[in-house]
């Protein structure tokens, strides 16, 4: 399970970015995971909570957006989204293609958060 190692990288980038953008508190992390990235969504979600413990983003929610496989067919000269990651064949003309446009990413897409409201007395 390499998701834990990925989760630590994720937390590190999120903490750095939050600091640079003066986000005092991070509520949500949006992550894009390609179907051919080799990352299992549930394993990443599980690992994230462990990796975030004791960091400034502890308690933030991880939202995983799965990215389907998009290929370019050299025959039709068009891009197609595949329903399943394999086989890598054009759904229209059945041409095999290794040209993957999307679907392999492991990407931290955005953070949601803001400044903490000072308690008023």
């Amino acid at each position, binding site marked *: *399970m*390499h998701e834990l*190692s*990925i989760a630590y*990288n*994720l937390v*590190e*980038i*999120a903490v750095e*970015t*939050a600091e640079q*953008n003066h*986000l005092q*508190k991070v*509520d949500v992390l949006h*992550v894009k995971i390609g179907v*051919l*990235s*080799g*990352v299992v969504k549930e394993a990443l979600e599980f690992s994230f909570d462990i990796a975030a413990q004791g960091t400034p983003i502890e*308690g933030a929610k991880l939202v995983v957006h799965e990215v389907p496989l998009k290929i370019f067919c050299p025959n039709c000269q068009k891009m197609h989204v595949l329903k399943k*990651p*394999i*086989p*890598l*064949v054009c759904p229209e003309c059945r041409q*095999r*293609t*290794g040209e*993957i446009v999307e679907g*392999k*990413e*492991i*990407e*931290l*897409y*955005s*953070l*949601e*958060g*803001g*400044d*903490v*409201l000072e308690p008023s007395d």
Partner: protein
Amino acid sequence: MSQAIKQPRIVKIRENVLKKNDMLARELRKRFQENGVYVVNLVSSPGSGKTTLLTEVLTRLSNKYKTAALVGDLATENDAERLEKSGALVHQITTGTVCHLEAQMIEASLKQWNLAEIDFLFIENVGNLVCPSSYDLGENIRAVLFSTTEGEDKPEKYPTIVNSADVAIITKIDLADAVEFDKERFYESIYKSRPEMKIFEVSAKKDEGIDEWIDFLIKEKNLLGGQSIN
């Protein structure tokens, strides 16, 4: 107690989570190229015959080339001991609980060697068909190994690693008949995730296809303009 937030904001990042590994891998690739080292990353399940094939390849290459091997394993150093008999420089990376090799482990292990003296470096990844696929180690070529005994549809079950590889090697091809290995079905299974991939068929025990694999590596190395011996 949860803290309230005033003026919620969204910060777009769009950053590759494995950026750190990829950047280090790029640096390694540059160092390898500058020193004329051709690097092969071998990935497979446990027991597919990586070490047996590698021992044979290293033994043959070591006649003409300076070879080295980095071997990833969870716990033991048995593989390194087997490989040392070939005359190659061998270093074992014991990963503990980590199921794959990362670029930073490679970088740390290279410190003991003078890269300028090495022609071929083989990285034997941890036996695992899932996790190593995401980690670029700065290699020139990634070879995924499947043995005939694992069944012809195994590549379909691991499309990510097949797609990330450059060539496939069928090992234990001498057992193909005994286990009724359907070669055509296997090729089809590979092409589903990596159309047109080059596939080698080898048997380390019966000396089949090894020279073809070695010749391919030498040719690839020479194409890259690495230092040639002749």
